[in-house]
């Protein structure tokens, strides 16, 4: 009987050596709300308007679109076809005396949702107007007074940019882009890793490691 009581008592006392059950660690998916597109990212654009030194004036605006998607980070992209605006920095018509028409274009921004991505350094292969200044001068020299007057009526060619002409530009500053507005390039898309939230620390817990 005594032995039976001792056995029951021993069984009732919890063993100190047994490990406490580990509480479940909550798992939180870390989805970035926004990704930063850095300044000076090179981009390829397309002009969506017919422009000419004869018909356009300084300050005119026109549509542009992104030709190639811009890879932002982790497989997120700004999709091709994203629209924006460009502007005519300088326009001057061809004139008498053989002066060629001039057209200088700039990129203002791309618009992704309600976010404007400012642009700079647009380089477009605008076909310059034909400079007939040499012809006019030659006529003036060879033709004397009559040639000189006639040469004033020689005009240069107009500068033109046709719809679809491509250009290069750069982003002007860092821009924070909401992920919800970005597309995905599945070739490079990296699924967001699940990150284990830190377990709650109890008062009596032992530090895992101490720097020495």
């Amino acid at each position: 009987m005594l032995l039976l009581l001792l056995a029951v008592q021993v069984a009732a006392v919890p063993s100190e050596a047994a490990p406490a059950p580990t509480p479940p660690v909550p798992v939180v998916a870390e989805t970035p709300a926004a990704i930063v597109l850095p300044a000076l990212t090179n981009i390829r654009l397309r002009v969506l308007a017919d422009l000419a030194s004869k018909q356009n004036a300084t300050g005119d605006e026109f549509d542009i679109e992104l030709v190639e998607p811009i890879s932002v980070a982790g497989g997120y992209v700004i999709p091709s076809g994203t629209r924006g605006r460009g502007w005519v920095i300088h326009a001057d018509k061809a004139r008498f005396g053989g002066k060629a028409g001039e057209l200088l274009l700039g990129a203002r921004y791309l618009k992704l949702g309600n976010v404007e991505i400012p642009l700079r350094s647009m380089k477009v292969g605008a076909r310059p107007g034909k400079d007939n200044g040499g012809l006019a001068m030659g006529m003036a020299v060879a033709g004397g007074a009559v040639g000189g007057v006639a040469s004033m009526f020689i005009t240069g060619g107009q500068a033109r940019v046709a719809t679809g002409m491509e250009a290069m530009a750069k982003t002007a500053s860092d821009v924070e882009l909401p992920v919800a507005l970005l597309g995905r390039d599945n070739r490079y898309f990296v699924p967001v890793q699940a990150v284990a939230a830190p377990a709650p620390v109890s008062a009596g817990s032992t530090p895992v490691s101490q720097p020495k």
Partner: protein
Amino acid sequence: MNIVKFAAVATAIALVGTPAVAKEEKAATAITLPTPKPGMGQVVLFRPGGMGSAIKCTVREDGKMIGRVSGNRYYVIDAPAGTHTYTTKTEATDTINVQVEPDETTFVKCKIAMGIMVGRPNLSPSTEEEWTKSAPKMKPMEVEKIAAEIAKDEAERAASAGAN
């Protein structure tokens, strides 16, 4: 006879050797443009030779002289980022708008077109490629001389404004 042979060999060596020397000299005089000052841009104003080489192209912004180039010369203008309107004038005024970007170089050329009494300078947008083609013939304007001309022009403008 030996003297004749020696002269012929020496001439041949001289003829063969000359182009190489000339090439080295040309390479040594290649133009290296300065880099823009931190946070600033710069405008390279150049004047390809040809017509009206005697006429100087004086460039102003808001009436103030900022540079001048004669035939086959260039001048580098420091400019803050943004849009700039430059003018040049003889019997007619020509204007160009340029967009200066920070840490970048913008190219503007000045050519002389036909005028009634004198040639008309024309400012037009240019590119690095066009500059590179013209560069072998280019020489820089004397910076000290241009600075003195700008100071003189400024004094004349101030005197003119005071008189009015």
